[in-house]
């Protein structure tokens, strides 16, 4: 299990890993209240990357990463579907 120390690196690696295997990858968040520790793990059962922190400055970035990963999971197409031509 690899801990990554820089947030930017972790974010890039997480998105790359998810794009590589969207059906196998899972994103796990562990919150340890007694210690005030937040650990993020993303794995596709072959490679695993983790990020841990005790500081609150990452919260906004963490939420943005959550959103982007969940959007990838849903694979939502943002463009409007073409309207069928009326006959």
């Amino acid at each position, binding site marked *: 299990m690899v801990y990554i120390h820089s947030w930017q690196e972790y974010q890039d690696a997480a998105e790359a890993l998810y794009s*590589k*295997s*969207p*059906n*196998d*990858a*899972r*994103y*796990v*968040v*562990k*919150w*340890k*209240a*007694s210690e*005030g520790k*937040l650990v993020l793990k993303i794995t596709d059962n072959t490679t695993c990357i983790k990020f841990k*922190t*005790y*500081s*609150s*400055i*990452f*919260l*906004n970035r*963490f*939420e943005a990463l*959550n*959103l982007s*990963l*969940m*959007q990838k*999971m*849903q*694979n*939502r*197409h943002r463009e409007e579907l073409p309207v069928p031509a009326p006959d």
Partner: protein
Amino acid sequence: MQLVDNNTFLEQLTVLFESTKGSIWLTHKRLTYDGEDATMKHENGSSEDSREYPCLLRVTDGEKAKFSTHVEAGQLDKFHAAYGSLLKASMTTLRKRDKKREKQRAEQAARRKKKMTEPVAVDAPKRGNGRRRRQRQVKAVLKQQGSQKKLKEREEARIKAEVVI
């Protein structure tokens, strides 16, 4: 494992965060299981990727609580607004980065760097009164050389890894 709808999920998650005893695990994954035996997944890397999937979220506290929810594609924005603010509001015990620790860390790093780059002078006498001092200086020079070599190897490995990726 209880499957609940999104709002109940958020409520139960709020309760879990408030109990603050132990840990909380949140798992997010794409939902490719279609109920019975037919799984709607396709091979990773196939170009036909136009399906939309619901998102599966599971929560556990390691002991008794275990529940999950499906988030449909259309509901993600609304759900995430509530979900994100819930997470941000509950994780308040994370330390706000204080200047003191940052300064300490920066000073330690600067000190370490100095020790590695400044040349160690071996100027004590070889025999007689200051011999021990000279031996310590020679040992420091060797240690510095070792650490510089390790640093170089690490840099090379990193460059090589970057080239591969």
